[in-house]
């Protein structure tokens, strides 16, 4: 069979394909996004982006009830959004297998929190598998579909940043072709969760979880390897692979199923080793249950509840116990004395968000923010975002703030939200704002795409994940139908217009919505973004006043003549400049202009 180097996400897509999956639905979110971007290559799978994770899961539920195997993907915080259907899906169970991928982000490489998804498996009473590399991503996804049907339950596969984005060798298998053909089958007692029916289902859920825990004892994915009997470590996922290199002699119980735990297997392992440890990132999920069994175990007394674990951190923690004389002393980081300028992420040259934040900063607005590339508007020199909690929160927070502050301060409150985020969970917030008559201003930064997560289409882009043309949401019309009376569309590259319109709407004592109309520079589809010829700075006219540096464009460089940072002139990198014209408007000396 063919072998390829695949990322965890590519391998999950492959696993779904081999499992005969027919429908894949999700919402982008790092580190889960590339799963659906890879199911798309398999014509047999209907892959689609939903506007949010709740809808994505509901689509997968429908497909499962219709008899198909269905995959649903999201990042860890997406599960919060999908939690409502998820908890009751646990009661209905499935028809075709349903697998939910929850991608955690320990260390918060690109997330607003580092919640541990295993708690969802426990709270919703759903089995959860945790692969340790790409090969397991593929195999566990296949297995999850089988288990889903065998135990009549959704199955969650938990990945993390280091699993989803690591690549390793995967061996390909064939796609299953013997699954039943989907069709409508009525089964109200199982699928209509009214109290009477749900009361019947709940005991079945509890029985299922007990059975899974018992069966987990003999599942090949839960595996004891006895090496040195002095040390026994229960672990799962990427930590298992770190451990194999840090303490290759330690005995291990590697859990492929992290919920429910195979209690009898854990007892058996504990009996065979002298000192038992649990190695797990984030919460003491396994440790607390082992302690609950009355077994002595160490875990979070050695490892932090915060951040990701690395081979280095694991090594140092075991070293510090003094119980592992073979471990060499912790690595001394001699190179870290050198202080280097930081390199934070930045909005791209030509990004249409930049001008809006420049204006908001100038107007001293109180900006309730949201999540997307525009969250970078928080960073200097734009420094124009005051809150950021979760997707869609900007609008509700703006309504809330205007309920409590003085009339003068109310005028400063502006919610800023991207197109994808507005469609995700912003619309409900806007309904509330209009319904309950908040005077706040909402800016929808419509760049036609879900940029932050890597340019995914959304219901306003006019194309589907499978690249077919479709209806594009009309934002002004949508806002109008909700009841917004003041709707303005602005060109965010026109700084005067943007500032003037913002100022007018902020001063209005009614809800208003301002929509920007320029596309993301990263959109590849023809006819959406057009690069203009690059601008240049006239050396004679540039006085070195630094006004153009206030927008933080990566294409503009402060060139110092000697070693004095303070004296210099602006220079535009012709390769990076998109000709958006914003810097020209800031130059009082007409030193910046288009070519010729």
């Amino acid at each position, binding site marked *: 069979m063919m*072998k390829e180097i695949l990322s965890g996400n590519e391998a999950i897509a492959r696993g779904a394909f081999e499992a005969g999956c027919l429908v894949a639905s999700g919402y982008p979110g790092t580190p889960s996004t590339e799963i659906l971007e890879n199911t798309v290559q398999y014509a047999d799978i209907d892959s689609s982006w939903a506007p949010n994770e709740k809808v994505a899961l509901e689509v997968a539920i429908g497909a499962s009830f219709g008899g198909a195997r269905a995959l649903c993907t999201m990042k860890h915080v997406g599960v919060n959004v999908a939690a409502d259907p998820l908890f009751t899906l646990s009661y209905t169970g499935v028809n075709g297998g349903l697998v939910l991928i929850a991608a955690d982000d320990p260390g918060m490489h690109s997330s607003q929190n580092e919640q541990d998804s295993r708690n969802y498996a426990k709270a919703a009473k759903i089995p959860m598998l945790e692969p340790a590399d790409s090969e397991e991503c593929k195999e566990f996804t296949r297995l999850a579909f089988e288990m889903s049907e065998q135990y009549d339950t959704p199955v969650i596969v938990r990945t993390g940043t280091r699993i989803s984005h690591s690549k390793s060798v995967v061996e390909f298998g064939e796609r299953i072709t013997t699954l039943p053909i989907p069709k409508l089958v009525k089964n109200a007692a199982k699928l209509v969760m009214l109290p009477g029916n749900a009361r019947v289902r709940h005991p079945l859920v509890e029985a299922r979880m007990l059975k899974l825990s018992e069966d987990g004892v003999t599942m090949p994915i839960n595996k004891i390897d006895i090496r040195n009997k002095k040390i026994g470590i229960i672990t799962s996922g990427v930590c298992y692979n770190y451990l*194999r290199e840090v303490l290759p002699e330690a005995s291990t119980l590697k859990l492929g199923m992290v919920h429910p735990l195979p209690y009898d297997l854990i007892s058996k392992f504990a009996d065979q080793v002298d000192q038992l440890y649990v190695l797990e990132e984030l919460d003491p999920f396994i440790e607390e249950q082992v302690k609950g069994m009355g077994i002595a175990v160490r875990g979070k007394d050695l490892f932090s509840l915060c951040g990701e674990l*690395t081979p280095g951190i694991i090594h140092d923690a075991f070293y510090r116990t003094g119980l592992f004389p073979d471990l060499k002393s912790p690595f001394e980081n001699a*190179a870290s004395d050198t202080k280097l300028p930081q*390199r934070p992420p930045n909005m791209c040259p030509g990004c249409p968000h930049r001008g809006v934040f420049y204006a908001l900063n100038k107007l001293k607005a109180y900006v309730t923010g949201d999540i997307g590339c525009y969250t970078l508007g928080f960073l200097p020199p734009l420094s124009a975002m005051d809150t950021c909690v979760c997707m869609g929160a900007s609008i509700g927070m703006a309504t809330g703030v205007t309920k409590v502050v003085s009339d003068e301060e109310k005028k400063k409150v502006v919610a800023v939200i991207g197109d994808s985020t507005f469609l995700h969970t912003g619309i409900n917030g806007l309904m509330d704002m209009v319904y309950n008559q908040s005077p706040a201003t909402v800016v929808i930064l419509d760049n036609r795409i879900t940029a932050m997560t890597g340019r995914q289409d959304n219901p306003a882009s006019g194309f589907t994940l499978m690249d077919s043309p479709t209806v594009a949401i009309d934002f002004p019309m949508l806002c109008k139908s909700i009841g917004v009376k003041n709707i303005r569309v602005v060109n965010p590259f026109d700084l005067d217009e943007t500032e003037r319109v913002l100022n007018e709407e902020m001063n209005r004592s009614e809800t208003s919505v301002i929509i920007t109309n320029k596309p993301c520079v990263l959109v590849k589809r023809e006819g959406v973004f057009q690069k203009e010829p690059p601008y240049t700075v006239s050396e004679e006219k540039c006085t070195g006043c630094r006004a153009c540096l206030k927008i*933080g464009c990566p294409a503009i460089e402060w060139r110092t003549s000697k*070693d004095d940072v303070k004296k210099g002139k602006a220079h535009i990198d012709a390769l990076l400049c998109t000709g958006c014209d914003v810097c020209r408007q800031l130059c009082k000396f007409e030193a910046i202009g288009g070519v010729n």
Partner: protein
Amino acid sequence: MSADQITNILLVGVGGQGIVLASEILSETCMLAGFDVKKNEVHGMSQRGGSVVSHVRYGKEVFSPIVPEGEGDILFGFELMETCRALSYLKPQGSVIANDLQIPPPSVLMGKELYPQNLSEIIKSHSADYILVDGQGLAMKAGNVKAANTVLLGAVSKKMNIEEDYWLKAIEKMVPSKAVDVNKSAFLLGRGI
């Protein structure tokens, strides 16, 4: 210990420089040569012009996808300051192959700080085996500035005990067909340094 037989490589630079493709060619080469290989890099925020670190590890059997600090055999830098930032990953006997390129970070662009001028000295003080490559210049010679990464890859390949053929096969597989020839000659130019 199995970790002893593993070669650890770090590819570092700035988001948008093509580090991911280079690390993909590297991993593919290792697999074709019959090794087990794992690699990791974090996508997401860092791709908006932030620092990028890609880890590649190969050997008989590789468990962890990330290189522990202080264990890197080869530090492959696409940009000078980022090369310097990643020095803590390097073993005392490790090699550094760095592109002679400076990309100013936001604070330098905005005139708040100067781009550090003593980077090569710092790198030298950490590694006796340091090669600075004019990636862009050599790529121009090969026929396309955009092939700078492949020139660098050629220079790195000399530090790895893998036959030339596997490298060329990996390039053929990973690079778009019309760019294969340019990239092959870029690779050989780098390998000849």
